[in-house]
Each structure stands twice: as C-alpha cells, then as structure tokens.
C-alpha cells in the first residue's frame, strides 16, 4: 500500500512538535474528517528558519507533513509557497489514489501558516 519511503517518514517523522512563539501558525482539516494538520513557522529575513508540525491523521498524513516540512525548511517564503502536494507526493515515491487528499492538507497547512505570518506582519 505505502512505499518504503512513506513508511520511513511515518515511522521516523522529522520536525514533529511546536514552536513556542511561532511567526506563523496554520491549521487545516477538521477532526470530523479524521485529519488535522497544524504547521508552525519561524521566519527570519523572509527565510523559513525552522518548521514544526502536529498531525492527527493516517500514515499518509503523517508522512506528507514530515516531508513537506523538510522541503520548506531553509527556503524563502516565495519558494515555500510554490511547493505543491504533487511535489510532496513524488518526493515520497507516490501514494495510493485514495490517499492523495491527505497530501493536499500538507500543502494547505504551509499556505495557511505563511498567510498567518503575512497578516501578522501587516498588523505590525
């Protein structure tokens, strides 16, 4: 069902946790749907210095969260905004068809966190 890489990321996810005074936080999904993803960003000079996540969801949700955080760490905001769920999935070596929607969550969580960061910037 899952590729070895998905299982590796599921078993040893990178960047799990929270960032206390995060510059941007994004939460997507809902417990009713069985998946929630929360993404924390630490941003300095337009660069994503640190990223952490928490996920309530299936193996694919955990693996895509983890992969997505790795893919944006150290990138500029503009670069991070270009990351799509397709890119995350292909980095993981593919996902079963019925699990593609879980990967959309990772993309949405990143965008939500960046949006939160931007709106905080504007308010400052």
């Amino acid at each position, binding site marked *: 069902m899952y590729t070895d890489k998905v299982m590796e990321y599921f078993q040893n996810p990178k960047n799990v946790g929270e960032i206390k005074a995060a510059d941007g936080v994004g*939460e997507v999904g809902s*417990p009713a749907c069985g998946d929630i993803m929360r993404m924390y960003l630490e941003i300095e000079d337009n660069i994503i210095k640190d990223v952490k996540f928490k*996920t*309530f969801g299936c193996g694919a949700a955990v693996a895509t969260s983890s992969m997505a955080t790795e893919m944006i760490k150290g990138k500029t905001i503009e670069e991070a905004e270009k990351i799509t769920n397709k890119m995350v999935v292909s980095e993981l070596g593919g996902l079963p068809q019925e699990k593609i929607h879980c990967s959309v969550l990772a993309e949405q969580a990143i965008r939500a966190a960046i949006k939160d960061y931007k709106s905080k910037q504007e308010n400052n």
Partner: protein
Amino acid sequence: MKRVYFDYAATTPLDKEVLEKMIPYFSEKFGNPSSIYSEGREARKVIDEARQKVANSINANANEIFFTGGGTEADNWALKGVAFANKNKGNHIITTVIEHHAVLHTCEYLEKHGFEVTYLKVDEYGLIDIEELKTLIKDTTILISIMFANNEIGTVQPIKEIGQIAKEKNIYFHTDAVQALGNVPIDVRDLKVDLLSISAHKIYGPKGIGALYVRKGVKVDNLVHGGAQERKKRAGTENTPAVVGFGEACYLAVTDLLKRNQKTEELRDYLIKSILSTVPNVQLNGHPTKRLPGNANISFEFIEGESLLLSLDLVGISASSGSACTSGSLDPSHVLLAIGLIHEIAHGSLRVTLGKNTNKEEIDYLLEQLPPIVQRLRDMSPLYIQGGK
C-alpha cells in the same frame, strides 16, 4: 519478527485438521457431485455429510441448509430472496443501522426496487430496543433482519426475543450470524429464526463458502440462477472441498464451545482491564457483558486509527480499526457513529479480536507495545494536550 494476529473477526486461518479433510477432494476425488458415476456419487455423499454437520451446528435439518459462495451472498440471498418472493404480502423490511454492509447495501438496493426499509437505532452499547421494534412493525412488514452479533463492537442482540415477536406477528426473521457461529451457541428452533447466514472463513474453515439456513416452508426466490444444484435453489458446480471443510469447521466450532469461550473471555477481560487502567483517555465500545467472547473494541482519544494500526504492524501486531482512513472512505465506521461516538473518537478506535489459539503471552506483548505507541501518536497530535483535554 514474530507476528501476533488479533484480527480473528476479519478472517481466521484454515484449521490444519480441516485442510487435511479437504485435500483428497481437490485432485483425487474431484468428481462433479451432479454426475451419476462413482466419482460423482462419492462427492454427493460427502457433501450430504457436510451438510448434516453444518445443520447440526445450528440445530437445523440438513435439507434447510443451502451452500453459498460466502456470508455476503447468504445475506444478499436472504434479503432479496424473501423480499421478492413475498412482495404480494407487503414491501416493508426492518433492519438496524449497525448491520454489516452485506445487509445494509442490499437494503439500499431493495429500496431502489420498491421496498421500504426501516433502520432501527441502537443504544450506546449497540443494543436494539425490543419495544421500539414492536412499534415499527406494520401490516406491510414482511421481513425483520437483525444481526446476531456485531462484527465491530461484538454486541450480541436479544435474538430469541426478536424471534418470538416475529413469530407472533407472522413476519419472517433473518439473522446474520456470520460473527456468532462458533462464538455463541445457536439453536435456530429455540430462537425461532427463519433464515440465518453463516460463513466458513470466520470459523477456521475455507474462504469462499458460506450457507443460508432457510427454515422449511419459508418462501424465498433464487438469487443465482442456473443448474439444478442445491435442490434447485442455488446454481453452480458444488465446491466439494470447501463444503467438506465447512462441515468439519462447523463441527469443531461447536465442540467444547463453552469451555473455549471461558478461556477467551478471561483473556479478553484481562486485555480490556489492563488497557483501561494503564492508558488514560480511553473507552470501551460495545456492551460490557453482552458481547462476543473474543471482541475488544477500544477508542483512544486524540489519535487516528490507521496510524495506530501501522505502528502496531511495525512491531508485528495485526489488528483492525473503525477509522475511515483505513478504508480510504470519508466517514468512520457506521457502527461506532451509531453508538454515539463523535467522529474523532470513532477514528481512534482499535478492534482487537482473539482467536481460539490466542494466549496470554500474545496479550502481554500487545499490552507492552500499545501504550508507548499511543503516547508517541498523541505527542504528534494537535488535538492532544498533555494530561488530557
């Protein structure tokens, strides 16, 4: 890695003894039982013997047993067969919201074909309300189909009382006993059941074979048309080795049943008690006592079932869940929702089902592995706040 199997409600390994009885009928004694030469007659004879064993296991007559391709086909046949054969009497069917999909989706099909189906609710333990059932019966009610025991939460319904009501009202009563056979004593006469579905692979018999008990005199249309097999009620070349295996499995399933159950219940209760007392924020689903001996269904707050199953699999443990994510569908188990669980709790459910060879070491291994996995997943969960909600 040693593997520990805790999904006996999904399917069971074929008993070695049963396989041994089947082997001769694959390649040596393979004759078509509809043939009159000696190979055929021999096949006919062993099929009749097996039919008798299946009948004995539920106290039916052999001529009331019809072999099918599995439990699903038996359920389909019972519902469609009774509905279409008796539509001159009425078009109303009563079932429950917690039936297996083999019944529920068949009911949906019947709704599209002019039948009216009422779905009985269940209480927090998964039990139907007998009084409510009585009030739902109408003049047009031709069939009540209520499962004997639930496959997810293990709740066992008051079958005898339902049978009594159906009989008084002159309504046919079908029960899906796929999960009950071999776990609960079944006596179709005493229970006043008119039709009953069973499946071999749940009782250490072969896959691809089941049976429908049809009480003598019950009017039921055919589902599968063709040759004259099964006394013209179910067409298709008889699967002699599977029939032989099913007969043997039925025989073994009811032998020493109560003694086996006692051991299984002890282990199951030990498992449930241990989890409830060592892991916080958990709850048992289903009825505390009116449940299948080998069924434990527990919800772990803040975590999701598929992640739990995958983590258990990585340490060699096989179990099941009512999470939607495991099935790739959107909604979690209809059974868990029906007993009132909210979506996120239903998602975090774990079904552990014990088999006849499950031992304490296996339970202890699960008890050792489970808590740290739950903790790790909770630490990852955005819903979890240390120390509870």
